[in-house]
């Protein structure tokens, strides 16, 4: 019983130490995240074209999904690509509101005099029920502005110049899906396409669903992937290369905490194997 508590304490300590000290390490290089950066970087938009980002996560998976949403939006905002935010999951409503605002605020602090305003840089389309059925009808709609109708505040999209005349789904140059839920991502893969149009899809998933996401990365249905928090950490590192002012300290500290906890876990496995052997050995001696 006592031993168990020591392990519990060790785990908490391993996680807390880097946070308290503010120690961070360069994250692990993940190919999938690097590919995703290049994909986002290569998106070229004409006026009236947009990116569509789905945030489909609740409080239970924010720890991984929020940093992913943050880095993706940061990159899109830096590149001045207008973003439509939508959700298929009710509990993510508060994140649709808070995450882009935080990103915009940080960028404005970093670059005084520049602005990222609601309605210009992004709009929040809110939660849309109906999942697969909704996406199917969105794809076949002749005009997205009309189809989406209003933003979450009830304002018609025609009110915002960047989103006033979108036209068909072909004007969506990039689709991002950040989720920790099963089935939600499948809706995007299966339904967000039509004859002659297959969007570039990038995906942020929790570590639990990484094995499943790999199948789609392999087949090319997915162009980039953020694997859990480690993926977000590497992505932020790649952004920093291009934009040295970018501040990703908190994310790197989190990632370092994770790395340290992983190591402690591996050490525990080793000890778990060595300790009984040692006992046997000592008994043999006596």
């Amino acid at each position, binding site marked *: 019983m006592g031993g168990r508590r020591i392990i519990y304490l060790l785990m908490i300590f391993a996680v807390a130490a880097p946070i308290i000290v503010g120690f961070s390490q360069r994250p*692990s290089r*993940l190919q999938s995240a690097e590919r995703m950066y290049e994909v986002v970087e290569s998106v070229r938009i004409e006026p009236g074209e947009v990116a569509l980002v789905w945030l489909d996560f609740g409080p239970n998976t924010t720890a991984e999904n929020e940093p992913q949403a943050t880095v993706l939006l940061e990159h899109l905002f830096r590149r001045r690509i207008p973003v439509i935010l939508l959700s298929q999951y009710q509990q993510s409503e508060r994140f649709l509101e808070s995450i882009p605002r935080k990103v915009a605020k940080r960028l404005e602090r970093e670059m005084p005099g520049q602005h990222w305003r609601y309605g210009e840089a992004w709009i929040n389309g809110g939660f849309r029920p109906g999942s697969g059925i909704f996406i199917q009808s969105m794809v076949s709609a002749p005009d997205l502005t009309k189809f989406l109708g209003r933003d979450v505040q*009830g304002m018609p999209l025609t009110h915002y110049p960047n989103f006033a005349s979108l036209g068909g789904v072909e004007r969506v140059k990039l689709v991002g899906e950040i989720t920790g839920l099963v089935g939600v991502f499948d809706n995007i893969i299966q339904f967000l396409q039509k004859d002659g149009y297959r969007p570039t899809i990038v995906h942020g998933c929790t570590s639990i669903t990484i094995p499943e996401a790999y199948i789609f990365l392999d087949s090319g249905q997915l162009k980039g992937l953020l694997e859990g928090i480690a993926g977000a950490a590497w992505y932020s590192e790649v952004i920093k290369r291009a934009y040295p002012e970018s501040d990703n300290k908190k994310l790197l500290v989190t*990632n370092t905490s994770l790395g340290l906890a992983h190591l402690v876990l591996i050490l525990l496995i080793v000890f*778990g194997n060595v300790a009984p052997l040692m006992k046997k050995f000592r008994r043999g001696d006596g």
Partner: protein
Amino acid sequence: MVAQDVNDARKKLIRVFTFLGGIYFFLHFLLPESAVSYLGWRANHEAISNGFIVVGAMALGLGIFNIVRDHGARCVFKRSGWFNSLALLLGLSSMLFVTTGQWINGQKNSSDVRRVRLTGEFASRILSDAERPPQDRAVPPLSARITALLGHQRAQASAIEGEIAVSLGPDAPASAPMLIGEVKSKLDALDQDMSEIARVPWEALGPQQKALLERVAQNATKLASAYSLIKQANHSRTRIHKLYTFLYDGLFNQLGSAMFALLGVYIGAAAYRAFRVRSLESGLMMATAVLVMLGQISLGESQAARAGVSLQDIRQWLLEVPNSAAFRAIRLGAGVAGLMLAIRMWLSIESTSFSSRER
């Protein structure tokens, strides 16, 4: 023996209902698309599915009933732990009360905004009815409709003034003056349209009338959007909303996240205790787990770079090949078993458990 007969009849009835429960979805799957459309199921599929969900949704009181019975008795008879049961019942009733209150408030808000928006919708409707008089229903004369429109807007204007007064209270948010300015300017614009409408003759629909109605429709929609922001701001200052935020963000979310976080700690204990290499099997499981873990952290990479092998690549291969194959086999096997059970369940091919024989 009569009792036995009644029992048998009941069992038969249960079987019939079980079969009926499945027949719609089964036929929907079995019939080709054209037949489904012909039967009208395609158009009404959502409504029919909702009917099925309603049946299940009615069970929502079962849980509460069970909890109240269990913990209520404990409180009433002051059995051990009654204090905690009281906390539970308190949490339950306050959440029910606060969520209901918050919801009713929200409903009222949206119907208020809806009424403002109605001005615009009514204007568009008057316009479309005047241009293409409907065949299937009677419509009042144009001038009467315009009078109704003016009356409606007057009532809305005074409601909006009232709401603005509320939003200037002592604890008003910093954004309040801006929001109010927005609403006031939109309201002024609409008022101007309205006074113009009152001046213009409405015996027939001319280009001037048409333009006016179009403008009213647009301006009323803009007003409604601005108004909804004030409504929202006022709503978030109500006591019921604060209580809801406190219960939801301060307790429900935090307790849920804390429970989830325990997993991070427990994993340590599980790893220490159970990942012992006792056999080839446990050795394989441990080795795979360690390799995958090393592949996803930064420290793993720097070690690996020295050795000249990329742990990331090994991790990826492990996930793509052996992991996917075994995973697929498990899913497939469980799927087949589920299919057989589903057929059995639907057709009530029974032995024990559900509608059992009396012994």
